[in-house]
């Protein structure tokens, strides 16, 4: 069964737009490197995305989860900023993030957000808890579960290597929703009268803006360059350097998430620098595209089908009654 699929069709490193059939003159794969270590949680990206893409207002609630009042990525929320308030009981020394605090100003580094090394002495640190903020978005996976399972061809791979829903083709079957390992895509169910209700919705990586040679709205709006847009290859390089620098500065928690083309989804087009385990931010720790196992599933289903056919034949053999 697996021979029905091409090499690395279902997982493994791959240039997704080449696989989708775009020729040699295709643009380089585009994506995001989101460096959460310099996110200040201003939500400019959330707002810019809603404005540019005309995404309807979502429920806006006091959720009791720090400054997070937009809840999650969903049909009406294509960027989502997560806020995590972490007590030091999380078991690691806190690091001066360069955030405003109540202590005396300039507690002594001047080297910017990650200049100071982790402090062993609690008195030397102005805070005993830390903020983590992270702007989440569709990962534009190399092997995108949503795109694999879409039965209508509504989800497509663009020439930029991104994953986009064609609103007029989607039939609202909703299969892409449980297929995504990150819980990104969703069928729009409200507000009534909004466009594309009943249709799967998610970040398009601002396909229209890329077409016009512009930067996506969210990246453009980000005041700290936490959201960096560019060629995925170059961004991966940049991300590696950034992690190295942070490690040298003693921020040993810094790690990349989604940058490895060998990972369970073939690497993501939008990847992240995190300061804690992925699940702290609401990411799956080690996601795998469900279709990786599809050849095996089809094999099992074929065996089961044969079992049923043989069984049904056998019960008619033998005794007349």
């Amino acid at each position: 069964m697996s021979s029905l699929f091409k090499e690395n069709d279902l997982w493994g490193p791959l240039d997704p737009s080449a696989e989708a059939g775009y020729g040699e003159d295709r643009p380089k794969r585009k994506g995001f490197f989101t460096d959460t270590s310099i996110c200040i949680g201003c939500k400019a990206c959330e707002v810019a995305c809603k404005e540019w893409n005309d995404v309807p207002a979502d429920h806006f609630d006091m959720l009791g989860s720090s400054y997070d009042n937009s809840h999650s990525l969903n049909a009406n929320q294509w960027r989502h900023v997560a806020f995590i308030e972490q007590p030091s009981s999380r078991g690691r020394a806190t690091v001066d993030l360069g955030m405003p605090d109540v202590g005396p100003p300039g507690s002594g580094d001047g080297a910017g957000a990650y200049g100071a090394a982790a402090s062993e002495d609690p008195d030397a640190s102005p805070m005993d808890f830390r903020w983590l903020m992270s702007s989440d978005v569709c990962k534009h996976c190399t092997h995108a579960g949503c795109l694999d399972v879409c039965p209508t061809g509504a989800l497509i791979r663009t020439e930029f290597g991104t994953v986009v829903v064609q609103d007029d083709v989607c039939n609202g079957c909703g299969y892409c929703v449980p297929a995504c390992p990150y819980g990104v895509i969703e069928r729009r169910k409200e507000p009534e009268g909004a466009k594309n209700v009943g249709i799967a919705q998610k970040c398009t990586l601002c396909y229209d803006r890329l077409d016009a040679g512009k930067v996506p709205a969210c990246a453009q709006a980000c005041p700290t360059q936490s959201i960096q847009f560019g060629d995925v290859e170059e961004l991966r390089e940049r991300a590696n350097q950034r992690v190295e620098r942070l490690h040298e500065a003693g921020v040993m928690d810094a790690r990349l998430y989604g940058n490895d083309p060998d990972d369970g989804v073939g690497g993501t087009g939008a990847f992240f620098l995190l300061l804690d385990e992925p699940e702290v931010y609401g990411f799956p720790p080690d996601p795998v595209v469900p279709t990786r196992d599809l050849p095996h599933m089809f094999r099992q289903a074929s065996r089961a089908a044969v079992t049923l056919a043989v069984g049904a034949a056998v019960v008619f053999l033998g005794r007349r009654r």
Partner: protein
Amino acid sequence: MSTGGGDTAVGRDGPEGVRSQTTAVPGVPAHGGRRRGRGERTMVPDADFVSYYGRPIVKPAPWEADIPAYLFAGGLAAGSSLLAAGADLTGRPVLRRSARLAALGGLSFSMAALVHDLGKPSRFLNMLRVAKLTSPMSVGTWILSAYGPPAGLAAAAEVVRMLPPEARRGPLRLARYVDRPAGLLAALLAPPVASYTAVLLSDTSTPSWHEAYRELPFVFVGSAAAAASGLGLVTAPLAENGPARRLAVAGAVLELTMEHRMEQSMGITAEPLHQGRPGRLMRAAKVLTAAGAAGALLAGRSRLVAAASGAALLAGSWCTRFGIFEAGQESARDPKYTVVPQRRRLEEEGPVRYSG
């Protein structure tokens, strides 16, 4: 907040509403996921895990009762087409008739459920624009589209047979030429109809569906056989119900043993199959299916026993489909079933990495 005082710092950070969720404080390991109802047991000891305010990571499918009903009806139709073909070839006219009509009934119900889920019939046609091997829904749509016409024709031919001879005029006289070929073709295409739905569920990131992918097709074909033979037991006379009795026992045994194996291989993602509503459905499914199979062993002598066992088997299959469907939905709503298995795998085998 000035002293990082061990675990008590957790409680001090959030407002009351947040704290009452067990996994409320992000970055702090919490015990368990959502609260459990009374009288529910866990197979695997509770695992500590971290999540973002206890919010789901993957999204549950936006599907409602239509879909498990579709799973049931599709299985019933497929099993019935097989029974009908066998009955046709071995001269069991009543079993043949009821099974062919059941196949058409199951198929129509399936299509109605699908169209209801999509909102309007034209949306079904969107799926016929493409054939896509990576999409079990696309593959399934094509399987159904191939199976539907012969199954429908066989049922139509059956209706023609029921007409008085003088009414079988004009084109209706052709019915006897398509009768058996249509029935056999439907039987040939029926097994994939029964088994592809397992792939439909498993090819998702819904933990309790995906982790079940090895055994689920066998559970589903067993359930299809049990349902179809259940209907056969209800409708066929004692003189013809032998094959239905044997298929009922075989289907039930296959379903129950594979379901057991499935639970053993699913690790922590088997938990939702034992808890809450899905747990009750699965327990009911087991009791009904086992009772139906036991009854089927004795159903050669009493019409009443046959009908009762048949009804139990049908109900059991219905409960299996709803139980598995709802367990998956629960597993998607609780981040525990996404985080814990991936964490365990990371600890035991390291990250998933492509090699060659």
